[in-house]
């Protein structure tokens, strides 16, 4: 079973804080990590390979430093990695990103399963998986919380719904996006990590020319949407701090709630 896992290097947004004076993001000391959902995708790939044999490939699109994410995937046990990096890939919205990754998967060929994490913690869109599935004309299974059965012809999964689940069968090849509850990702092995950082590590670097894409189809040029502005979410509330001893404060609070007809 040949498996491609899509991974992304992201800033650890759970550690990001806002400077209370300026309202800006404090970026110092925020680490770059493999997107958390993607680590679960990597774990699925490694587990399936252990059960069914075959080859696993980690594929990522990002700036040159994203190679660390690819190396870490190899450190966890993925067989080989491909990093798509080119300054012309920069500024891509999800459409252009999915197009670029899709072209790379087409170039890789010979795969049975493409696995993505549900969404990245910086973009938060959850669009890349389904967009790539459409580009490659693959059946898609999103929000996968469990793989029930899999062989070289088909896969059966449990998909999470808001109020329950759905069991769905799909022929292979297919694309799935997985939730964190599907497994517990292993830690990288030091010896694998060391090998992954050597010159002879099985990591390829591809640029736009390798994919045969033109500048207009990728990056900011190929994007259909534009970011107009970004800003910190602001609060519109007055924020009255009630003063006094506990009984007094509770009594004031109830008074306020009464005025607003809440009690």
């Amino acid at each position, binding site marked *: 079973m040949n498996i491609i896992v899509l991974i992304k290097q992201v800033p650890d947004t759970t550690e990001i804080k806002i400077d209370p004076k300026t309202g800006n993001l404090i*970026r110092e000391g925020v680490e770059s990590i493999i997107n958390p959902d993607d680590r679960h995708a990597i774990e699925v790939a490694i587990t399936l390979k252990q059960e069914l044999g075959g080859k696993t490939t980690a594929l990522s699109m990002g700036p040159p430093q994203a190679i660390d994410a690819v190396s870490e995937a190899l450190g966890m046990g993925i067989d080989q990695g491909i990093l798509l990096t080119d300054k012309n890939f920069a500024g891509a919205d999800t459409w252009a990103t999915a197009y670029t990754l899709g072209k790379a998967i087409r170039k890789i060929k010979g795969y049975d399963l493409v696995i993505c994490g549900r969404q990245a913690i910086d973009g938060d869109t959850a669009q890349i998986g389904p967009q790539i599935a459409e580009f490659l004309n693959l059946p898609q299974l999103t929000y996968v919380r469990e793989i029930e059965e899999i062989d070289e012809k088909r896969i059966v999964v449990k998909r999470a719904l808001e109020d329950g689940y759905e069991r769905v069968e799909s022929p292979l090849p297919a694309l799935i996006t997985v939730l964190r509850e599907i497994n517990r990702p292993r830690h990288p092995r030091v010896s694998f990590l060391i090998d992954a950082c050597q010159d002879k590590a099985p990591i390829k670097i591809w640029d736009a020319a390798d994919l045969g894409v033109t500048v207009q189809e990728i990056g900011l*040029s190929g994007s259909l949407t534009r970011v107009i502005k*970004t800003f910190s979410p602001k*609060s519109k509330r007055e924020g009255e701090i009630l003063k006094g001893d506990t009984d007094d404060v509770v009594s004031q609070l109830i008074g306020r709630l009464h005025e607003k007809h809440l009690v």
Partner: protein
Amino acid sequence: MAITVDYELCNGCGRCIKVCPYGGIELKEGKAVLTERCTACGACIETCKVAAISSDIQEKEIPDFSDFKGVWVFAEHRDGTLNRVALELLGLGQTLAQGLNQELSAVLLGHEVEHLTEELGAFGARNIYLAQHRLLAHYQTTPYAKVISQLIGKHKPNILLIGATTMGRDLAPRVSMRLNLGLTADCTELTIDPTDGSLLQTRPAFGGNVMATIRTAYSRPQMATVRPGVMEAKRKDGSSGYRITEKVVKLLDKDTLTTVLEVAREEKKGVNLCEATIIVAGGRGVGSKEGMECLFSLAGVLGGEVAGTRMVIEEGWLPVERQVGQTGQTVRPELYIACGISGAIQHRAGMLNSRYVIAVNKDERAPIFEVADWGIVDDLHEVVPIFSNAMRDRKAKQGA
């Protein structure tokens, strides 16, 4: 492609630094200078008031979109009932359609679902595209994507809104790639730009730390998935005249690439945070599972529900269906009482639309106080029981 700053024009105002979420630009000796963290997202270009920042990409010509008209809302449903988000989007759709002076339509795919058209009409749809076929009875990606794409190709809407539910987030990106359309995910605010009539789509990114406003410049319809629980459903009073446009659907079994074997509901033990009018929420400050009891008491006497931050769920003090936040649920109760919650952005993202917010926290610097209407700087384990007792006494006096 590269972003460049023209140092002659740059006046060092620093606006670009403020809008960059990546640390990709900084001020050096009074001029804006790009760092290696720049991802070329282009937000700084739009923000610069002296046009000092530009990119070397050739901006494509914006095509003539004047024949794309109409605001469409995807009417999500299951087991014979509409998902509330469809009604919320119709409420938003009414405002957008009015602003554009275009018609609001609902798009209803399914099998034996005609009975849903009345509710769609009552909540604002003037036209309902009704596409029925046995292969649309239960949602599956490819038959739904195929039919919607055909409808779009034929009728050319200006805007298509889909709820950011598991169904919507499975369907929308598939349609967007099929038709080469820009798609913005999980929007919390949508307005019409008065200068050119385009849709301004605002959404949280970076785990909720940043809000981004996005324009779909190069494709129509403008597609957006919209976060459930944020927009307001608006029942139309008076006559809710609407018409049904029935569409002939041609689908084959092979169009459904996958097979649904079983659908099962999992009992959530009766927690419905989305409908709760009062929510009592606990955070790290609660301290333990036992510590949650006083919150349950307060919720009981107020007639509300109990919720918690991600940390509380991860510690096992509350089950996952009670989580509020960026990765939990978004709620908009009349009253949200945050106890022992610091107010991290990821949690705030889930409750900012509450009508009124009370915060109780020992730490006066906790960010939760910035988003509260009333704050109490005190130990919740003191305050909450006194609050519960006072409310009980009050109710007894009122003879309730």
